[in-house]
């Protein structure tokens, strides 16, 4: 009778021990998975950052190109206008040179 009781208690203790071992094993899995997830979270955010950064760089580059083109176009128009208007004074410029060379 006592032996039977001890057997039952031992069995219960073994089951209890198994519960703890299982829980510890599960803990290791949980933590290992958490490490993997954490690594992936960081990698994903890093990737996300790189992709968004590329979009920002492309966008700003396009804006820069557009702004640069605008500046060049405007100044080229100014240069063209300046050349056209100054050409009217070319005769005066030529006269200054000729008169100076001839010592007039």
């Amino acid at each position: 009778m006592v032996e039977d009781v001890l057997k039952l208690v031992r069995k219960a203790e073994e089951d209890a021990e198994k519960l703890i071992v299982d829980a510890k094993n599960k803990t290791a899995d949980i933590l290992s998975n958490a490490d993997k997830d954490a690594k992936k979270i960081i990698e994903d955010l890093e990737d996300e950052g790189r992709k968004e950064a590329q979009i920002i760089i492309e966008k700003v580059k396009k804006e820069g190109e557009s702004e640069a083109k605008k500046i060049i176009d405007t100044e080229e128009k100014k240069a063209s206008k300046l050349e056209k208007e100054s050409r009217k004074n070319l005769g005066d410029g030529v006269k200054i040179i000729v008169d100076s060379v001839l010592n007039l």
Partner: protein
Amino acid sequence: MEEHSNIEKITSKIIEDARKKADGIIEDANTAAKEKKASARKKGSDIKAYILDSAGKSAEQTEKKMISAATIKARTAILESKEKLILEAFEKAAEELEKISEGREYSGVLKKLATATCINIGGGDLELVVRKNDEDLLKKELKKIEEEVKKSTGKKTSLKISGDGKVAGVIVRNLDDKIEIDSTFKNRLELLRPELRLKVAEALFR
């Protein structure tokens, strides 16, 4: 019967305690896992923010460089446009001088240029080097030039002409001092170019 029930209570308690402990262990693990992920999210977000911040700064720098390069290019376009016109003025002036050297008024121009150059060299025994075709133009004015130079420099002046010149204008050589002043159109154009550039620019872009 009661004894059996007591044993069952004991074993149930053992199992129940173990389950609670196991649950506690798993709950701790879950909490730790949550913390690891939260920490990873924070670290990932920081990395992302750093990447975006760097990209923003780099993009801003690139944009500034592009605009700066464009501004320089644009300014260069204006300067090139001005330079083109200044060069054109000098080219046209050279053509005009060439025409003058072939025209009727050249005789007067040559006389004036020769006189001024002889005065500049200080008079004396001088040789006037001109183009072969211009020798006759100058010969008939020689006496007048000698007088004018003497009057201006106070020095007796004697002139002779050489037709070895290659271009319009005159080279005056002082035969005693072996000094010469090159007053050919070509040389005067080059000598005067630096100071004329400014005057021409003022006339063109007023």
